[in-house]
């Protein structure tokens, strides 16, 4: 059994809602409400959910870009939220983030090669000359050419910029990469290139991924285990095959059936029963009582309205939080 690289236990991140003259706290947005995830070394875990589900906040809280309210985040057995700034900084190269829009995290006046190597020098991991070597090597692995080193960010297309974002994370030789919607802004033909790159790098470098996305089809292609979030709560986790073959939670089922498939509707014979959810995702500042999904769930009963379902084992590596399934 491989050891857990990242352990997230009962993590809660609440953002205060303030109001009035003295900014009194009048309530909380429970962006992340009791989430537990364990990532083994070399694993790719996919965290999916709609907007407002708290999936990005999970990523941010793990790397301490947001403060937790309670719970713990253990990276290689070390509790990240207990570390001092200095200790955390030392550890940072080992856990890297990749964002949706790489352009906004690149300085337009810094040459791309220097931008990729910057962190190496800042962290004292390499001299300037060594950094150049390492950067070129990583650029090559990410499908960028040597002559790209001296170019500026605006000279690159969206797909290439994402390659730069990946190279920048990779050059530090991290153990864990948290990627927040890394392919969402890309065109399909480019998206496929980047998904393949993520895959290739995982194998060649033994990387562990936490992949945050709203797109189930992308997650299916990249991740071996998947967690589905709704309003800050984990609804279901299972291995990829189990989740897609045998989804248990009504929300997962609805989410799966809502993804448009590129087979013309006019042609589909076995019209799989499509669950079209009614209504919108509720306000996270004021989530429904009981099961948070009950307002949109077609099967909700009295117990769902009153009691919060426990996140429980449902056989194999399948876990769900539902009274009915």
């Amino acid at each position, binding site marked *: 059994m491989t050891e857990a690289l990242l352990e997230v236990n009962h993590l809660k991140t609440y953002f205060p809602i303030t109001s009035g003259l003295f900014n009194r706290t009048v309530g909380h947005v429970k962006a992340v409400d009791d989430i537990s995830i364990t990532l083994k070394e070399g694993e790719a875990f996919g965290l999916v959910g*709609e907007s407002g589900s708290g999936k990005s906040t999970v990523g941010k809280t793990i790397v301490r870009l947001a403060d937790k309210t309670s719970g713990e985040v253990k990276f290689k057995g070390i509790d990240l939220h207990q570390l001092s700034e200095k200790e955390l900084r030392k550890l940072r190269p080992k856990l890297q983030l990749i964002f949706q829009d790489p352009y906004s995290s690149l300085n337009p006046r810094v040459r791309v090669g220097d931008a990729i190597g910057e962190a190496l020098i800042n962290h004292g991991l390499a001299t300037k000359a060594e950094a150049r070597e390492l950067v070129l090597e990583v650029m090559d692995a990410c499908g960028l050419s040597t002559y790209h080193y001296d170019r500026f960010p605006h000279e690159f297309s969206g797909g290439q910029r994402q390659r730069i974002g990946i190279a920048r994370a990779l050059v530090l030789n991290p153990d864990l990469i948290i990627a927040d919607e890394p392919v969402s802004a890309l*065109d*399909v033909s480019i998206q496929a290139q980047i*998904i393949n790159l993520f895959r290739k790098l995982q194998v060649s470098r033994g990387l562990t991924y936490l992949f945050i996305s709203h797109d189930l089809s992308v997650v299916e*292609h990249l991740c071996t285990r998947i967690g589905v979030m709704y309003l800050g709560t984990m609804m279901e986790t299972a291995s990829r095959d189990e989740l897609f073959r045998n989804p248990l939670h009504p929300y997962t089922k609805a989410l799966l*059936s809502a993804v448009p498939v590129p087979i013309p*509707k006019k042609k589909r014979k076995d019209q799989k029963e499509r669950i079209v959810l009614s209504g*919108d995702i509720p306000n996270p500042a004021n989530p429904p009582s009981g099961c948070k999904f009950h307002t949109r769930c077609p099967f909700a009963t009295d117990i769902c309205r009153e009691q919060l379902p426990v996140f429980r084992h449902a056989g194999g590596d399948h876990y769900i939080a539902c009274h009915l399934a």
Partner: protein
Amino acid sequence: MRNVMEIEHLSTYFYTREGAVKAVNDISFRIREGETVCIVGESGSGKSVTALSVMGLIEEPAGKIVEGQIHFDGKQLLNLSKQELRTIRGNDIAMIFQEPMSSLNPVIPIGKQIMEPLKTHQGLNKKEAKRRAIELIELVGISRPEQIAESYPHQLSGGMLQRVMIAMAISCEPKLLIADEPTTALDVTIQAQILDMLDRIKQKANMSMLLITHDLGVVAEIADYVIVMYSGKIVEEGEVVELFDNPKHPYTQGLLRSKPIIGDRQDELYSIPGQVPNPLDLKESCYFHDRCEHCLPICKTKLPQLKGMEGRQRVACWLYEEGTHHD
């Protein structure tokens, strides 16, 4: 079936310091009565500019429709004055955009904004318009319509706002609804609701629809007829089943293959190599040739024209031209 709109040899250019960008480059197509035509393409393919050209929303002098004709309902849209165009826009042709928030006025209640076109185009008085506005809000699947009519845009979610935009667009019972990426900013569960509703309303009102999207899944869900654009050109078009069953153009084939599909996992996704050419630097050639697996010598020197295949399918590719050498 009657054509609602015929577009002939439309070309729209934008002028930049570096030169002219042929955003839409000599395209022709028609939209039949009651039909949903989808234009699919990646960023920079010219799909949105096509929609804006039809609506007369190209801002001069940065951009200009340099050539072509747009026939709509017996009129030639490009010859109309601004005033004449305005009576058609919103009344006979309506449009919805990707970002509903940016098309709504933040300080006017939703209901009032829906009443506006009803008063301008249909000549309804205030009371009638209000009644109709509430009916429309109900029609697009919003519960508590009276209450919503009184709310301001910031009080509603993205999905609700897009419904409001649709309510506004269909308020004057247009013959043609143009929707530019109407569900791209929405979550999948909300997207499913909106697509369902658009389809239902379209059938009921016998309206035609021109839908612009980058998502082949959405196309499969709602289209009758599909147009694939690349670098300002139509590279392939056809009825939705024909096109998905038997895509002819290597670009269409590549697009369909590179989309990850749930339940059909591959170890490595097919991906089209390279990237779209620089629109300022298009040479006389097939614009897709340097990304194409089947590139022939002629592809590098001559632009292929659209050619009819079986049914309504047409493709612009030298592979299907008689007399071109296959291997």
